[in-house]
């Protein structure tokens, strides 16, 4: 039988040996004790013996009787040994010499004991030290081809079939006695070629390098998605995140496991408008970029985030999800437990093979596979994560009492008069738009309904409420995530398999929100005939999510951060007994109570009951079939075909329940007024309902099919030993077809599935309750049918000479049916060239302490096709009719005959080094990216009909550096300490702006993100703050002088009021991870740092917002300017009514409200304990836990802001898990 495959299997096989050793040791100990107890106290004496072929044991017993010396030996060591001895009054030494001659035994006299041992047995090493006189002790280390220690490798002396084999320790070290010079040690390790080493001298410190036995065993290779490249021949910039790194975190999506493990990816929550604590956004791809963003405008739909490749095939997402706001995150569905590793392709040589889609980098995910010649192994992993409730108190609000005072003030100033004046028109059927509760109380007082004392008491009572408490209590909860996964792997000579299943169950932070995910995957590789490998990967994912109805106000955490909520801070969701309360929403309570005289549906909004009305159900299923076949034609050529089929169904069912506020409100609006006369019949038809009673049900069915077919020829040739050429060439066709439709059903009954859509949507004179008017029925039906096709041709070649010099080159061209690409720029070619110099393989290189030293450099072009931008205006057909009752079409995009594709020229220089024994290894990379023809959504002459358009408007240069260091600080048999340090520097600079329009933009558009030549892509600008005036008005330095000419400062043509502060994205970022290992216990902590950037204080006061219904009154309101002289000690502007929104813009964006963003945070701590009890049925038992988002350790701002919070700080999470195999 042949040994094979991996570590795991090897451990499995080593088990019988270990078991024997343990047994022997136990027996020995037992005997030692017995024999020692029996030891007699007899003195030294002469020995007389005459025995022929007597059992040795009997002879020794006799000696013991004569001398009192006790013999210590293993119970079976002397069995079946006989001896002939003939001595008379001989000394013990002489006698023993005769007895043990040619017995293959050694002995040692220790006090009154004689220790007998079988020669070369390692079992009693310590005791046997003394026997080494006749032997040589050899120590050393077994390492793999990379220099990594191989624990549990087996060593024996050649020809010695009697002795127990020795196995290496965790560090690959061994110690072994050999019978003198020229002995041959045989080293074996599953998966590696058995190696024989001749020993040539005593106490030699051997390092034995093992070579892989089977060609297809995992080498140190890098996957580009198209091919595997041996690391020492790769010219490009790759970053591999190993399985071990991925398992340091327990999150259920793969992308968030990359945080802190790579220098390449920027996770930048600040600039990405996603809700941090929203259950929908767990590591969204669109928030990522590799080595800085290459796009001027991150909200262009496609092309601004990295391409994701799974097992060689790009993941399509077709954009259908975007149109329906469905979370179609293609990576979110991957079960992290099925991922073997992740490779990030950073430079042109690495990524240009992906051509027009590579400009933002490529993330290559390789899933786990079975391996040939591997015994079956079953593994399971389970964990639970608890996430705290989101902290609504992060933004410091002024007290509710202050807020009440402000509203009182606004009331007295007439701010609500316009809204209140609707009361005057009630007779004409006008509704009564809502005013805040404070205003209701004051109105009641004014009308004499309540007394001033009553009003004041009610206002004072409001001041004691805080809606954040209610939301925290009734809407939020701790999130709980559970993950389970099970996998079976194995393989024989011709077949390898892996089956896995995973199940995740999440209870999200908001009530009534949960999801679960089932993943099943099967991977089989067979070798039906020689030289042919056929690999089949089938993955099935079922994802279900349940949420509050879309129409519910509290359906996602983003809505509860209250920054822009209609809910006043004193609003109560429930009374003191927890009974749900109605809150003011669209109309005044009095109107709601009286409108329709009882002929309308209840018009109150009660949030805590409303969240239970209806639901949004998402059912997503995806099946991916990936077939790959490779045939080795001969030593040089290999032909491969990949076919990938991907089918994704996303069904979203939204039900606004019959009793939901949304439904009741809509039904009421489509009710005829009391005086309505049907124009067709002339008959009065008061309170006639145009919408049927029941729920409003909107299923959205989205079906996406993607197919990829690729043919590839691999060329591998080695000649004269030193010359190696690896090349691939191929072609690929891709298609994706998305069909989606969405329809609204009225009068839906959940239990009978009945609905009533027999409604006349074309009629434009449906009576509408408000304003006594007519309108159309709301109609929603969307049908989308989208086909994308693309073809690509690629070639990639590398030549290596003597494992010292490598040159690589690649080229690719793409074509696509997407408008714009087909017409303007189909088949734009992308190429790269690169070189590598393995300095450490040069003969002149003799730096022992630095055995690894390699230099790489590449240059090439990546493309970025933005499918959302087209040079031709296209028309879309509306699915409903307009108010004229006619079907119609609308225009999309603009006619822009000068549109060009974006291109990114990337230069990368990298240095890899490693000290002796890998104590310190690292990579330093320097890169520049020259992005040309960048598209930006920039203002244009509004006379064109567009306010802004996506057009080529700028060039940008990015310079950066990545440093990755890992060190083994302490390494002993029991304790080790390793550190990983990552550092990245990334700075972009706009080098050219093509259009006058952008260069002449006013300061306000620059604040909004218009690129400015010479500064960062994401820059923070601020108005130069000149303090408050003596009336408390904000002042800005305009032309060097304090000014209150806000319009000129913000919208004028000169920019003197504006100053450039710095980058809005971290210029320096990285992580520092320390791992400590004590025996079975591993502790690691990861610290993230982001430096060199600025952010705007998120809670500067905005008076115009407050008078227009914003409910966010920041704490600084208390420090506002109130009387002359205050300007000397405060910067918070006075409350002036009516508020000037431009003054608010000036203050909110002034230099005093820009803070340094630098911070260091403790991202994660994890602890794991591995049980090494091998007599258990379970193997590799590991218990682990982690805590994430522990908090900021240091920050540059003194005000306690977390610059990386977009809306609510990410809550802390606690996880605990168990994994094992058998």
């Amino acid at each position, binding site marked *: 039988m042949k040994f094979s495959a991996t570590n795991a299997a090897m451990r499995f096989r080593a088990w019988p040996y270990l078991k024997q050793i343990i047994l022997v040791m136990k027996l020995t100990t037992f005997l030692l004790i017995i024999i020692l107890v029996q030891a007699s106290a007899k003195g030294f004496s002469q020995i007389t013996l005459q025995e022929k072929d007597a059992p040795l044991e009997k002879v020794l017993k006799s000696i013991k009787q004569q001398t009192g010396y006790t013999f210590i030996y293993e119970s079976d060591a002397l069995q079946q040994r006989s001896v002939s001895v003939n001595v008379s009054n001989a000394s013990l030494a002489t006698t023993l010499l005769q007895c043990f001659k040619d017995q293959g035994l050694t002995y040692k006299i220790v006090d009154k004991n004689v220790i007998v041992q079988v020669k070369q047995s390692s079992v009693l090493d310590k005791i046997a030290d003394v026997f080494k006189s006749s032997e040589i002790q050899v120590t050393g280390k077994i390492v793999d081809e990379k220099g990594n220690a191989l624990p549990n490798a087996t060593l024996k002396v050649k020809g010695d079939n009697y002795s127990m084999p020795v196995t290496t320790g965790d560090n690959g070290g061994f110690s072994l006695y050999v019978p003198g010079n020229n002995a041959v040690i045989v080293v074996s390790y599953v998966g590696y070629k058995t190696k024989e080493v001749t020993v040539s001298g005593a106490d030699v410190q051997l390092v034995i390098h093992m070579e892989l036995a089977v060609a297809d065993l995992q080498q140190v290779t890098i996957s580009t998605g198209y091919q595997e490249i041996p690391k020492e021949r790769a010219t490009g910039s790759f970053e591999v995140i190993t399985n071990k790194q991925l398992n340091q975190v327990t999150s259920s999506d793969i992308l968030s496991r990359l945080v802190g493990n790579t220098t390449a990816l920027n996770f930048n929550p600040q600039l990405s408008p996603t809700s941090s604590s929203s259950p929908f956004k767990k590591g969204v791809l669109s928030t990522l970029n590799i080595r800085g963003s290459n796009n001027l405008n991150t909200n262009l739909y496609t092309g601004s985030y990295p391409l994701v490749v799974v097992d060689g095939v790009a993941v399509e997402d077709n954009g259908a999800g975007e149109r329906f706001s469905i979370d179609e995150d293609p990576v979110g569905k991957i079960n992290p437990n099925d991922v073997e590793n992740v490779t990030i392709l950073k430079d042109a040589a690495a990524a240009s093979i992906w051509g027009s889609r590579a400009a933002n980098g490529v993330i290559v995910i390789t899933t786990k596979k079975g391996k040939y010649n591997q015994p079956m192994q079953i593994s399971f992993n389970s964990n639970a994560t608890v996430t705290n409730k989101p902290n609504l108190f992060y933004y410091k609000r002024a007290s509710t009492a202050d807020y009440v005072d402000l509203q009182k003030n606004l009331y007295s100033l*007439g701010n609500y*008069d316009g809204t209140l*004046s609707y*009361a*005057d*028109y009630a007779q*004409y059927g006008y509704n009564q738009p809502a005013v805040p509760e404070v205003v209701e109380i004051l109105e009641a007082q004014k009308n004499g309904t309540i007394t001033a004392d009553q009003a004041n008491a009610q206002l004072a009572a409001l001041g004691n409420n805080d809606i954040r408490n209610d939301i925290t209590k009734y809407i939020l909860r701790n999130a709980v995530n559970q993950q389970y996964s099970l996998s079976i792997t194995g393989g024989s000579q011709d077949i390898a398999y892996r089956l896995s299943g995973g199940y995740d169950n999440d209870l999200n932070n908001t009530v009534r929100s949960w999801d679960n995910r089932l993943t099943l995957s099967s991977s089989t590789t067979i070798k039906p*005939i*020689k*030289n*042919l490998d056929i690999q089949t990967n089938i993955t099935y994912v079922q994802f279900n999510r349940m949420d509050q109805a879309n*129409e519910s106000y509290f359906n996602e955490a983003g809505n509860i951060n209250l920054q822009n909520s209609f809910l006043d801070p004193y609003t109560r969701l429930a009374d003191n007994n927890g009974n749900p309360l109605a809150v003011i929403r669209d*109309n005044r309570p009095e109107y709601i109570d009286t409108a329709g005289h009882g002929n309308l549906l209840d018009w109150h909004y009660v949030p805590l009951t409303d969240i239970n009305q209806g639901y949004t159900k998402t059912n997503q299923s995806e099946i991916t079939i990936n077939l790959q076949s490779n*045939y080795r034609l001969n030593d040089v050529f290999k032909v*491969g075909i990949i076919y990938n089929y991907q089918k994704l169904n996303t069904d979203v069912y939204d039900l606004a329940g019959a009793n939901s506020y949304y439904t009741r409100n*809509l039904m009421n609006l489509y009710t005829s007024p009391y005086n309505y006369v049907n124009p067709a019949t002339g008959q009065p038809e008061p309170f006639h309902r145009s919408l049927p009673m029941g729920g409003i049900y909107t299923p959205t069915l989205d079906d996406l099919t993607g197919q990829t077919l690729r*043919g590839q*020829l691999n060329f591998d040739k080695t000649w004269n030993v030193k010359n190696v050429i690896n090349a691939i060439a*191929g*072609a690929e*066709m891709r298609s994706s077809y998305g069909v989606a439709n969405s329809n609204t059903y009225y009068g839906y009954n959940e239990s009978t599935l009945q609905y009533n859509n027999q409604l006349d949507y074309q009629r*434009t004179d449906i009576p*509408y309750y408000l304003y*006594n*008017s007519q*309108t159309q029925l709301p109609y929603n039906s969307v049908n*989308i*049918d*989208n*086909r*994308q*096709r693309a073809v690509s*041709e690629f070639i990639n070649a590398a030549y290596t000479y003597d494992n010292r010099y490598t040159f690589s080159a690649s080229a690719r061209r793409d074509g696509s*049916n997407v*408008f714009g690409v*087909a017409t303007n720029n*189909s088949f734009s070619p992308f190429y790269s060239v690169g070189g590598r110099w393995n300095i450490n393989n040069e003969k002149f290189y003799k730096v022992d302490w630095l055995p690894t030293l390699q230099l790489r450099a590449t240059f090439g072009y990546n493309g970025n096709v933005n499918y959302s931008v087209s040079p031709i*205006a296209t*028309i879309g*057909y509306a699915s409903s009719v*307009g108010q*004229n009752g006619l079907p*119609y*079409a*609308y*225009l999309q995009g603009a*006619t*822009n*005959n*000068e549109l060009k594709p974006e291109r990114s020229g990337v230069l990368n220089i990298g240095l890899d080094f490693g000290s002796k024994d890998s104590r310190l290894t690292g990579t330093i990379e320097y890169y520049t990216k020259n992005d040309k023809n960048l598209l930006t959504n920039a*203002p*244009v*002459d*509004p*006379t*064109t*009909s*567009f*306010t802004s358009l996506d057009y080529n408007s700028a060039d940008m240069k990015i310079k950066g550096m990545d440093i990755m260091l890992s060190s083994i600080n302490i390494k002993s048999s029991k304790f080790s300490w390793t550190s990983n340090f990552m550092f990245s520097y990334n700075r972009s600079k706009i080098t050219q702006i093509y259009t006058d329009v952008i260069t002449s933009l006013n300061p306000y558009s620059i604040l909004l993100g218009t690129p400015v030549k010479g500064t960062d892509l994401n820059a923070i600008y601020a108005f130069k703050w000149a303090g408050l005036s003596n009336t408390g008005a904000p002042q800005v330095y305009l032309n060097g002088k304090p000014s209150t000419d806000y319009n000129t400062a913000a919208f004028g043509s000169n920019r003197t009021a504006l100053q450039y502060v710095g980058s809005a994205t971290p210029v320096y970022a990285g992580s520092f991870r320390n791992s400590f290992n004590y025996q079975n216990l591993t502790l690691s902590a990861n610290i993230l740092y982001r430096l060199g950037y600025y952010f705007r204080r998120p809670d500067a006061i905005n008076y115009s917002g407050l008078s227009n219904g914003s409910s966010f009154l920041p704490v600084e309101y208390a420090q506002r300017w109130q009387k002359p002289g205050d300007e000397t000690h405060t910067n918070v502007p006075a409350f002036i009514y*009516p508020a000037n929104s431009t003054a608010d813009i000036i203050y909110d964006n002034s230099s005093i409200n820009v803070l340094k963003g630098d911070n260091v945070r403790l991202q994660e701590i994890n602890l794991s304990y591995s049980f090494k009890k091998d007599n258990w049925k379970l193997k590799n038992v590991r218990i682990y836990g982690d805590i994430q988002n522990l908090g900021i350790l240091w920050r540059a701002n003194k005000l306690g802001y977390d610059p990386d919070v977009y809306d609510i700080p990410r809550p802390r999470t606690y996880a605990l898990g168990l994994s094992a195999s058998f």
Partner: protein
Amino acid sequence: MKIQHKTNKKPAIILTYMMTAIAATVIFSCNKYLDVKQDSAEALVSTASDGQLLLDNYSAMNTGYSSDGEASADNYYLTDKSYNALSAEDRNIYIWLPTAQRATAAPQWQNPYKVVYQANIVIEAMAKLPAATDVNTVKGSALFFRSFAFYQVAQLYCKPYTATAAQDPGIPLRLSSDVNAKSVRGTVAQTYQQIINDLQTAVSLLPQTSSISSRPNKAAAYALLARTYLAMADYTNAGKAAAQALELQGALIDYNTLNPASGTPFIRFNKEVIFQAIMIGTAYSFPNGVFTQNDATMDPSVAKIDPVLYASYADNDLRQRIFFKGNTGTDTLTYSFKGNYDGTPGNAFFDGLATDEMYLTRAECSARAGDATSAMADLNTLLKTRYATGTFTNITASSADDVLIKVLTERRKELIFRGLRWTDLRRLNSDNRFQVTLKRTIGGQVYTLPPNDLRYVQLLPVDVIANSSLPQNPR
């Protein structure tokens, strides 16, 4: 199971063939493979039907026309309280502050140019098609829409048409859809010439009738010609065009058939409407069903009808009760407007073309040509439908001047909040007899706008100036 290992060339050959086939397909037939429409609901404008669908986009083509002219005119006034509740921009427009200027092009400037852009796309697409009835209709419609939009912009942002029209800066005449084309102002003469030329072409292309008044027809083109010529004070051509329009469509609503108590006495697409267009105004937003005020100035709950104007309606003139409603509460004895021809409440007022305007235009032109009989005939035809049944007696005029005065008085009373008053003020300013100085009183302070003031031409919005090289209007 032990699998026999033997060298078999067959799969190699198959795989090689497959790979070659893929490569060959990609290299040689990619154009065909890629020649698939990306989205079934998405296309280039390639047929007359596509063009018609674009022009039938009611919200894009028939709504959202500029309202600042009406906001600046004298049909209404604001109380101090209402005035103070307005945005600074709206306040400045109301009192004709010399610096009054919209910060953004949208909606006043940009909306009509959106119509221009859509029309240009359609005109360019139709130019590639062989002439046919449907192609002609679509092309004629697009020309009409473009002219209607140009006319709107011209009333706000360039001087009225006078003797200096060939020197006065006009409006940017964007005649191509390419966004790279630079906007230039040209002259007022060029502006009006373009409108007239396009409308004359449209007249020849458009059908006699259209299925709904949101679609232009010959009558609409004549009516817009009449309106344009009138703005140019070319009374001969204006009268001719109005007559041609009335020949095709001359129906009037008998106001006795309307319900004066209704908040919306008219229906949309009523029989007087020749071409349906409405101004920027209220939008319903679901599910809230509350106003979104884009031009709060003229919101009926805010704008009070000029009392002199209100008092000018006779008691038996049905328009008084159909056009206006009395305010209540603190605003008792003030009135607000509800006579919107669009049939909706709120401030999205009808500013399209209607038969009553044509009667008044023809009457004015007849009066100016000295044809008192025709003028009075048109006026009486119209007014008969405006007075309570049996109470109307034909009005007569004492002199040629009196004819014109009577016609203009009725024009003022009939075409209220129809987007026409500002143009009429600009036009009549040149005639001593009809010059008026507009007044606004806020906080006791009186603001005036004397005839022919520079402020009769609005400043181009801030972001138009910032993002183009267009020169600003003088102050």
